[in-house]
């Protein structure tokens, strides 16, 4: 069948099962947009900024486990995707981005809206392609999806010159890929798993450190079986949150910079750390030289390069995590570490990190706890980056894998709006709450128009402190409370803003109105923005100052509070 390059793109996407694309047109993309009406099966969501398209595709991918798709025009359209690609790269999210490029004869001539997009995106994609012939489009797209979703997932970009969209070629969708240098998702080496089991079986103070890999490889039930059989407490990294039910007695929550104290202390005191799809990120380890000094590390990861990258490990198990843990379970002894479990209970009692102090003030922690309770931990919680993100990680309870969607590795402010939009498009059956900072929200609020236009039912909770709160907190602690360039004195009226977009806005100033507002938002069809005017100078505790050991965490100072 002879088709144009543009038709080949659409046919190839259909072959990959794509139903939704986030994008915005431009000159180089016109021929592709020209063919789009022939493909009503493809739902194109017109964003207001390409960063929104990339991050929406990211949220879409995280909510389903499928590859998210976005596209943009050449030059500025493509460069606007870069933050979203870098974000997906850091957090191992499967994305395919398609970009229009200037016509072939114009490449390299500094033509209008020409950017070396494969060059620019090279370090922030798992792989990328510049497709110079229509006959090569289907192969490139096939490979792009394959690379994006297999092994350690990540973003792949396909750059296509404008005149390749109009070139005619025979369309054949290849049924296999030929990538001799890429051999993903293999069976882990049983010998290494045996070594891991031996180490675990002689452990006295073992912990599991569960990361994003558990969610990506859909290994939550294996994780649970392993933890229960061997009686090992489970600590979850920020991206590992929701991989293990937080109501479970062995659930320990998040460690590290703003993690709960007992999790950080338990990591520090452990004699064996079994890392499952986590990467010993600096937010988790603190000062590496002083990280968990008495422990052996066992590291399961699909990416061989993660083993030994930051900490040295006793044994690394490279391969699919689900397979690896399945093989490990029968090798581990029925566990029994009563002393260790008692020690952890003691740590919990002595360091009650999650207590919310009694006050009449409107505390962000309280709001998050209420959202979590009212949604019965069934909603998808999407966050921005900053204090509200850490409070959400701490005070919302997660039970189902994939219900926390947050920007971990890159820490991308503005993630909260488009990612929530993408998540809701992917999972219309789920309640989606976007927990936003007033800072991050204003970075991408242009997508409110996309949300309104497409009736995407996202509930926004802006934890509005009129500050770039997390940065303000650091200034308070480390720069003598010199609040340089962190105080937002010109924020818009977010309720009026909601109205301007035809959405419902609710303002909450009193703790007494929190529950009512959350319920009202959930009972209102369509997107709602709840503007919570929270305590402005509230701090996130515990806190481990950058570069310190996780054993030297700062806890919330006890203060005398006025009665409620």
């Amino acid at each position: 069948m002879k088709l144009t390059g543009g038709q080949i793109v659409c046919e190839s996407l259909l072959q990959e099962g794509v139903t939704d694309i986030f994008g915005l047109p431009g000159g180089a993309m016109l021929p592709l947009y020209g063919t789009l009406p022939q493909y009503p099966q493809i739902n194109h969501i017109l964003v207001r900024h390409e960063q929104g398209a990339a991050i929406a595709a990211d949220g879409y991918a995280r909510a389903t486990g499928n590859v998210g798709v976005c596209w943009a025009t050449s030059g500025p359209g493509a460069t606007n995707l870069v933050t979203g690609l870098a974000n997906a790269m850091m957090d191992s999210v499967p994305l395919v981005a398609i970009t229009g490029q200037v016509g072939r004869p114009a490449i390299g001539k500094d033509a209008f809206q020409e950017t070396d997009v494969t060059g620019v995106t090279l370090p922030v994609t798992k792989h990328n392609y510049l497709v110079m012939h229509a006959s090569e489009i289907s192969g490139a797209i096939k490979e792009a999806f394959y690379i994006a979703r297999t092994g350690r997932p990540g973003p792949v970009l396909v750059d296509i010159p404008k005149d390749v969209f109009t070139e005619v070629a025979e369309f054949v969708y290849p049924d296999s890929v030929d990538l001799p240098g890429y051999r993903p998702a293999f069976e882990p080496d049983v010998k290494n798993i045996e070594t891991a089991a031996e180490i675990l079986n002689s452990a006295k103070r073992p912990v599991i450190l569960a990361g994003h890999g558990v969610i990506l490889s859909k290994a939550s039930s294996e994780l649970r079986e392993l933890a229960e059989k061997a009686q090992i407490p489970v600590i979850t990294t920020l991206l590992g949150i929701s991989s293990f039910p937080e109501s479970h007695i062995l659930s320990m929550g998040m460690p590290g910079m703003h993690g709960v104290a007992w999790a950080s202390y338990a990591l520090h005191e452990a004699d064996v750390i079994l890392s499952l799809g986590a990467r010993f990120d600096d937010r988790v380890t603190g000062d590496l030289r002083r990280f968990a000094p008495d422990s052996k590390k066992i590291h399961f990861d699909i990416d061989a390069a993660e083993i030994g990258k930051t900490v040295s490990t006793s044994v690394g198990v490279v391969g699919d995590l689900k397979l690896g843990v399945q093989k490990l379970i029968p090798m581990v002894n029925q566990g029994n570490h009563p002393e260790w479990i008692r020690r952890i209970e003691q740590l919990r009692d002595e360091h009650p990190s999650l207590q919310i102090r009694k006050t009449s003030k409107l505390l962000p922690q309280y709001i998050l706890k209420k959202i979590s309770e009212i949604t019965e931990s069934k909603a998808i919680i999407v966050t921005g980056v900053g204090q509200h993100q850490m409070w959400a990680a701490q005070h919302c309870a997660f039970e189902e894998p994939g219900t926390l969607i947050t920007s971990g590795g890159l820490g991308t402010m503005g993630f909260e709006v488009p990612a929530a939009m993408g998540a809701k498009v992917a999972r219309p059956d789920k309640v989606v709450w976007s927990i936003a900072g007033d800072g991050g929200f204003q970075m991408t609020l242009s997508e409110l128009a996309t949300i309104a236009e497409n009736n995407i039912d996202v509930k926004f909770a802006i934890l509005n402190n009129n500050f770039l709160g997390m940065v303000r907190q650091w200034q308070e602690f480390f720069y003598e409370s010199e609040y340089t360039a962190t105080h937002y004195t010109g924020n818009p009226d977010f309720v009026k803003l909601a109205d301007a977009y035809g959405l419902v806005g609710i303002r909450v100033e009193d703790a007494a109105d929190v529950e009512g507002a959350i319920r009202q938002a959930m009972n209102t069809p369509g997107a709602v923005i709840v503007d919570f005017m929270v305590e402005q100078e509230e701090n996130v505790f515990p806190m481990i100052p950058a570069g310190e050991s996780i054993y030297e965490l700062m806890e919330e100072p006890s203060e005398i509070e006025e009665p409620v």
Partner: protein
Amino acid sequence: MANVAHEYTVVALVQDRPGVLNRVSSMFRRRGYNIVSLAVGHSEKVGLSRMTFVVDCDDATIDQVRKQLDKLIEVIEVTDMTELASVTRELALIKVASSPETRSEIIQLVDIFRANIVDVTADSVIIEVTGDENKVDSLLTLLEDFGIVEIMRTGRIAIPRGMATP
């Protein structure tokens, strides 16, 4: 993990595609690995090239270099030649100032090193030498007194001995 810096030789078999050198060098740059030399050429297989890297780093880092290289989609195979029995060579072209008085002395040196003179002008000669870096370096030291005008070195290439070609 030893922290002693060392020169490692790593060979990568890569797909011969536009941009592959860029991907490889970008990875080295972004992760802060120090390339001492890099040589690229076609392999015995159509469509595949071999790159020989000499990297100055410690044990833990070379492990990362190998793995990060291997992660690149177009890199098919990575071999650390440092511990393997292998033959390593470098080619250098050296332009040396010469005069009728010094020429025969230079020729003698060239003979001792089994190097070749590949070009002669009234006031210079170009010497071609192959060998490991030590040999090239020694010749360079001896030629210094005559006045070295220009040096062109290919960087190390390496091939394992015997049939156990990786």
